[in-house]
């Protein structure tokens, strides 16, 4: 018995000027249409923690080869500091079609920078929407939100 796992990821990056850059990493050299949008092929790999219970916005890394279109993508996103990413993970059937059982995961991420090496470009993101446990909504506590701040450290939000 062999469990067959096929996963494709769709990378939908919106850069500072509002342009969408869409890539997928499964169907080699194929422009794949997903959700009425075309995704070109790019050999990227996404890894990292997408969500945590404490809402501390851990990092997701997307690794690309160091090629021209990724450099343009970096440039358009001001070094990936002004980019928004929708990373969709879909499970495929053994015939490489998207599973009909809705096995799909969406991650909304914001760019926080990038790093380059001679062969790779790593885009780093943090989750834009995270846990409801410790910091929801994910805002800094300011006077407009909670009123006059107390001098002591005990603030109770209810």
């Amino acid at each position: 018995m062999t469990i067959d796992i096929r996963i494709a990821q769709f990378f939908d990056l919106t850069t500072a000027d509002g342009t969408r850059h869409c890539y997928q990493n499964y169907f080699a050299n194929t422009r794949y249409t997903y959700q009425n949008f075309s995704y070109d092929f790019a050999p990227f790999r996404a890894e990292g923690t997408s969500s945590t219970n404490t809402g501390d916005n851990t990092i997701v890394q997307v690794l690309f080869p160091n090629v021209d279109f990724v450099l343009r993508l970096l440039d358009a996103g001001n070094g990936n500091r002004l980019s928004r990413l929708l990373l969709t993970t879909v499970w495929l059937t053994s015939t490489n079609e998207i599973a009909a059982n809705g096995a799909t995961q969406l991650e909304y991420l914001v760019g926080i920078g990038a790093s380059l090496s001679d062969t790779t470009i790593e885009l780093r993101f943090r989750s834009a929407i995270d846990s409801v446990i410790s910091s929801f909504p994910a805002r800094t506590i300011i006077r407009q939100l909670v009123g006059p701040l107390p001098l002591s450290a005990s603030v109770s939000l209810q």
Partner: protein
Amino acid sequence: MSNFPSVTPTSRRYTPGTYPQKTYRSLSGIVARRTYGNSPYGARLDLEFKNISDTTVTTLLNHYHAQTTVNRRFQLSTPITAGMNTGLSTEVQSLTADRGNLRWEYAQPPQIESVRPGVSNVSITLSGEIRDPNTDES
């Protein structure tokens, strides 16, 4: 330069590409196999050209230099699959999507063995990789 030179090999050995998969085996023995892409890659073709003229050797070497210096993969020429039926020739050419739409590159430099003046043996190993539409031959 583009396609591999039209020289019929004396012998050849073909290994089809592998699929981008990783296998994990659980303690219970169940195997889970993760597939990362829909195309095979890394096909291999070993070619032997025996007792060919040095002029032909030069043609082969010129092709090696021309393609490798610009990092451009290429298609096989028809004589490379000479003697195969259509189905097998199509398989080796690997141009269809389900065979990876491969383009070939030199896995290592050609090896030349001199037999006698003006005549040599040449060994060439090609590797078939998924075509890069930006750099490889169409």
